[in-house]
């Protein structure tokens, strides 16, 4: 085997090696630990781009871990969708790490950098794995790292939200395992490609159980994606987490959406009997409700970080509206919007943090405060991030929403989808305009202005980077949408990828 054949395992292996290395050197030589974190993130970005270059022609790469042949051992599978998620994760990781280091948020505890690397490892593994139980294991890796990161910095509010976050996810993990047990009992395999082939042969009397298993699995993914009514854990958790961490968490809900996109067509596709397109009748109403609840939260939010958290729910809902019909065109539009909404949410969390750092005691509350340094620059950034999140031109959110609107117009429920997307956009605009004008324009003169805080402008770098990526996504929309459409077509053709997995990774 050449080095290129092992490329696909690197996104998991690099952070797995970087995390303990950072842990070892952190106490004695901080700078070296930070350097290891950055080196790992840069290496991940390069690797992800290399994987993307390999699969962009339409190939499905399969890697048998430990050379155990395909249906028995664990396989890692990279196709266009997985490569896209890898690139997105590494970009986001780099932005979040930069912000954490510049704002010194990583110094509030010893283990920020190791936990950050383990988080990236769990995310990359979840995107790459072709085995359902392995998907569970990588979910647990990314969850336990996220527990640590979410509590980073401590404080009563974080601990309180942390208990709820952990308990909800433990229940979710239990349901995941129950669904896995049922699927293994019915099909005798855990390899996704193999299961997709065997699920058609499930006996008629077991169809009910298959359906229950499929629905349980989709519910767990919906819990991770924070789809209404399973969204209640998200706003508090994200609003109290350290902002750099919250920016990274913007991709955590997308892991849930990704798992739905990956597992449903591959395992519960057309030939799955009673479980065909599991949850399809409920997915669209839940997505519509998520968009409504999310942007209603944006409308009434009291702080900027809470508003960003509700924006995450709303954008996940909009994304699932596109996914719910399982047509190639709308899924392609959804994948483009997925990349956009992740970056936009991260940018909002970072801008909220930059504002809070300058307003000192006022934090990022949506109330008039003193005049603060760099008000126009930060306000401009907030406006750009808000425009992106709402989906106004000229940024990529507009293109994404336009594509979604166009692709769902052919569907029977298009009236609901159109009205929800357009009305929630309006409420989002009003909500962001309210908070932005209060924070950046209204200056309370009667209170004494705190001494201008000595902040350097370096902390504007990370949010600016996120916004620059959004602009690049809009500028390169032709290429990006072509890639997303190709990825969607590949996901919806599971037979081809199953053949690739079962022959390439076979002995």
């Amino acid at each position, binding site marked *: 085997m050449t080095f290129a054949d092992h490329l696909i395992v690197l996104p998991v292996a690099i952070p797995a090696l970087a995390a303990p290395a950072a842990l070892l050197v952190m106490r004695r030589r901080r700078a070296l630990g930070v350097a290891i974190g950055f080196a790992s993130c840069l290496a991940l970005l390069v690797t992800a781009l290399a994987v993307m270059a390999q699969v962009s022609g339409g190939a499905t790469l399969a890697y048998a871990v430990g050379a155990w042949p395909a249906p028995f051992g664990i396989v890692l599978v990279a196709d266009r969708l997985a490569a896209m998620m890898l690139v997105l994760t590494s970009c986001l990781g780099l932005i979040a790490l930069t912000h954490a280091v510049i704002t010194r948020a990583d110094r509030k505890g010893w283990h920020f950098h190791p936990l950050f690397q383990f988080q990236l490892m769990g995310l990359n593994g979840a995107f790459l794995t072709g085995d359902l139980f392995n998907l569970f294991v990588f979910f647990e890796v990314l969850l336990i790292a996220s*527990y640590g990161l979410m509590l980073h910095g401590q404080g009563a509010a974080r601990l309180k939200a*942390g208990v709820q976050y952990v308990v909800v996810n433990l229940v979710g*993990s239990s349901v995941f395992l129950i669904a896995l047990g*049922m699927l293994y009992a019915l099909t005798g395999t855990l390899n996704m490609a193999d299961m997709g082939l065997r699920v058609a042969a499930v006996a008629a009397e077991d169809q009910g159980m298959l359906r229950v298993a499929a629905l349980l699995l989709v519910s767990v993914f919906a819990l991770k994606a924070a789809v209404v009514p399973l969204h209640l854990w998200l706003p508090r958790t994200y609003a109290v987490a350290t902002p750099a961490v919250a920016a990274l968490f913007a991709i955590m809900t997308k892991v849930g959406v990704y798992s739905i996109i990956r597992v449903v067509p591959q395992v519960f596709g057309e030939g799955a009997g009673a479980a065909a397109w599991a949850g399809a009748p409920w997915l669209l109403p839940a997505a519509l409700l998520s968009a409504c609840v999310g942007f209603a939260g944006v409308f009434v939010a009291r702080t900027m970080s809470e508003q960003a958290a509700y924006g995450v729910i709303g954008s996940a809902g909009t994304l699932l509206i596109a996914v719910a019909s399982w047509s190639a065109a709308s899924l392609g539009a959804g994948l483009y919007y997925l990349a956009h909404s992740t970056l936009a949410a991260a940018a909002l969390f970072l801008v909220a943090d930059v504002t809070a750092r300058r307003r000192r005691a006022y934090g990022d509350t949506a109330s008039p405060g003193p005049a603060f340094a760099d008000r126009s620059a930060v306000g401009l950034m907030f406006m750009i991030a808000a425009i992106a999140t709402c989906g106004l031109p000229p940024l990529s959110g507009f293109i994404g929403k336009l594509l979604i609107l166009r692709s769902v117009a052919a569907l029977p429920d298009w009236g609901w989808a159109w009205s929800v997307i357009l009305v929630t956009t309006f409420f989002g605009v009003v909500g962001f305009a309210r908070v932005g004008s209060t924070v950046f324009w209204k200056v309370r003169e009667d209170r004494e202005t705190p001494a201008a805080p000595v902040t350097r402008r370096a902390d504007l770098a990370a949010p600016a980077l996120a916004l620059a990526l959004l602009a690049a996504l809009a500028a390169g929309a032709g290429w990006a949408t072509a890639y997303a459409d190709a990825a969607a077509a590949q996901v919806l053709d599971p037979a081809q990828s199953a053949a690739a997995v079962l022959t390439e990774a076979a002995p």
Partner: protein
Amino acid sequence: MMSYEFLVASAIGVLVAAGVFLALRARTFQVVLGLTLISYAVNLFLFASGRLVIGRPPIWDKAVSNYADPLPQALVLTAIVITFGMTAFVVILALRGFLESGSDHVDGDTVPCDPQDGMAAKNATVAPDVEDAQP
């Protein structure tokens, strides 16, 4: 005559029912106990997914044609390790939450508890909302 399958199935059912009941309680300790019971039930369930067989060799051998499925046992082992770690973590987290906010309620700080015996204080007053305590 009660069959082996019925015994295992009802044991899993009772464990899940008790676990769900406890997980819905207000206090963190009861919630942790509930999660533990649910994870026991899940482990039994995973074990049963390889079919319940008696008196078969546990691993494959060329000489035997009938053997117990070893994969669910490996899955259970993984699940036990993960849930053990998670439970330990959530116990510590609940304890820290209790010591920091003075309340062991999952949903926040409504009923402050006496740290001595863990019971709700007699003259309990509503604690100020920490989040709104900004100037």
